[in-house]
């Protein structure tokens, strides 16, 4: 069989990334230039700073991804680029580079949805088994997606306000933890006990949507009230309580979604899938329910281009092609 090499390009937020994937599931290279250190001083990602950095880094990263894979530009079957969602100025760099490379080489171009990419991160370690339900949790997304087969997506639920990762970052900020807050809270929570009863937003009885802004406000109010009464708050207990409230809702809704669709494969994806409490909570629940759970290795949880190349491979094989007028879509819909 002729080898299908796809170059992935990802610049939707603060990582400049390129990767080569063979036949949709074998990682040949995976290069990431993270800007986390740069944005830390600002307490969050500054879009203009991110865009500027992408322009400087993108070409060298593309070169490195091809070099490490030992694949020449003209040997590529396709170029896959994150089209959205994300920061528009940041997305534009990846899209402009992908289109220019496609034009200069004649290699076909496909646009990829960032969330589809996160789901396909799993495919790089263990082939996805269909039908499946994916729980995608990151700083920008909290969604439940049903996939009957490759490259087919149906959205079952999403956050109506803050993404789970966003709630983590905001709570981390009021606790005085460093950015990004997710790993910090996860670490702190291990030292505490979930003794505070924070609200869980279940929404309508049959809803698979999420809401985390109420929980975030409850945590902030709890801190303020304690401060006004001059009481000391055990930050570890507070982190553990907040984390438990998030995990309970994510776990329960993911299992509900799998049951609703009658599927026995659940896939975890996105930056927050690196969270140890979420992995443990889902693993325990899935064992009870007889559901097969997969999650990506830590290095593929956060934004990377290998996942974009993997997802792009199946779009390419499905016959999808993007033209040179391809544009970045900050609010791109998966379905």
């Amino acid at each position: 069989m002729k080898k299908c090499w796809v170059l992935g390009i990802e610049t939707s937020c603060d990582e400049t990334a390129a990767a080569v994937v063979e036949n949709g599931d074998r990682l040949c290279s995976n290069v990431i230039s993270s800007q986390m250190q740069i944005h830390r001083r600002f307490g969050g990602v500054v879009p203009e700073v991110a865009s500027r950095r992408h322009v400087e880094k993108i070409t060298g990263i593309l070169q490195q991804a091809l070099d490490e894979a030992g694949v020449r530009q003209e040997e590529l079957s396709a170029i896959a680029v994150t089209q959205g969602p994300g920061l528009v100025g940041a997305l534009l760099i990846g899209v402009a580079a992908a289109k220019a490379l496609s034009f200069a080489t004649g290699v076909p171009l496909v646009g990829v949805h960032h969330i589809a990419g996160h789901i396909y991160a799993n495919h790089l370690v263990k082939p996805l088994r269909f039908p499946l339900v994916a729980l995608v949790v990151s700083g920008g997304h909290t969604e439940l997606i049903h996939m009957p087969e490759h490259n087919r997506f149906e959205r079952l639920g999403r956050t109506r306000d803050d993404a789970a990762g966003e709630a983590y970052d905001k709570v981390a900020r009021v606790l005085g933890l460093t950015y990004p807050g997710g790993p910090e809270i996860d670490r702190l929570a291990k030292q505490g006990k979930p003794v505070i009863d924070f609200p869980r937003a279940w929404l309508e009885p049959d809803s698979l949507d999420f809401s985390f802004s109420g929980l975030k406000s409850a945590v902030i109010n709890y801190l303020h009230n304690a401060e006004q009464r001059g009481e000391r708050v055990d930050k570890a207990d507070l982190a553990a309580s907040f984390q438990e409230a998030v995990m309970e809702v994510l776990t329960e809704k993911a299992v509900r979604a799998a049951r609703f669709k009658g599927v026995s494969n659940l896939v975890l994806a996105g930056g927050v899938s690196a969270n140890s409490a979420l992995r443990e909570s889902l693993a325990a629940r899935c064992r009870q329910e007889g559901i097969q759970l997969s999650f990506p290795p830590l290095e593929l949880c956060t934004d990377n281009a290998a996942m974009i190349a993997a997802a792009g491979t199946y779009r390419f094989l499905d016959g999808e092609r993007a033209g040179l007028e391809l544009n970045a879509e900050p609010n791109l819909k998966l379905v």
Partner: protein
Amino acid sequence: MKILAIDTSTLVLGVAVTEEGSLLGEVTTNLHKNHSVRLMPTIARLLKELELQVEDLDAVAVAAGPGSYTGIRIGFTTAKTIAWSRGIPWVPVSSLAALAMNGIRFPGKIVPLFDARRHRVYTGLFRGNEGVSVPVKEERVTDLTAWLKELREEGPLLFLGEDVSRFREEMVRMLGGQAVFGMGRENAVSATHLGQLAFARLRSGEKTEDMEAAPNYLQLTEAEAKWVRSRKRGEPR
């Protein structure tokens, strides 16, 4: 030597191919539409009309700023990627130097400018010399009034740029007959001029840019400027 020249630093979109500094073809539109969507198809269409393949190009020139941040980045990334892919040199050229090319036959000095908002402009001072624009003062982003004061001693001045009309009254008030204004086509960058400037630089054997070169924004991002100020005041973080 065939050079592909790209300008997306303002609302104008310009693409040209030059050979030994002479025009082979140029497309310029002032549609105020999305550069991200239109740039690559415009390049492809122009090359097709000229019956050229991307393999025929010897270098890529790009307007490297100052100008619209997003615009510059689209042109810069596109130019850099094509050049990298083809293994040919790429030459970032000042958008202001390119605009000043429209006035090199003017006997005085040339002041190209773009609106930088809040009464500030991206600008510089140039003069024509042997068919190219040469900088007399360093490019800058500055308050317009302060800039006009500084220019009083510079003799006759030709102001160029689509945004100049917004400031014309103040220019005449401060400089009187010393201020001359560009007309029509003279106020928009011509991508051919970019190609000419790049050709002059390549011919003189100037070193071309490395892959990590950055566009010339002329100023820090607001977040960085704020951070620098807070550090100077000795605030924590």
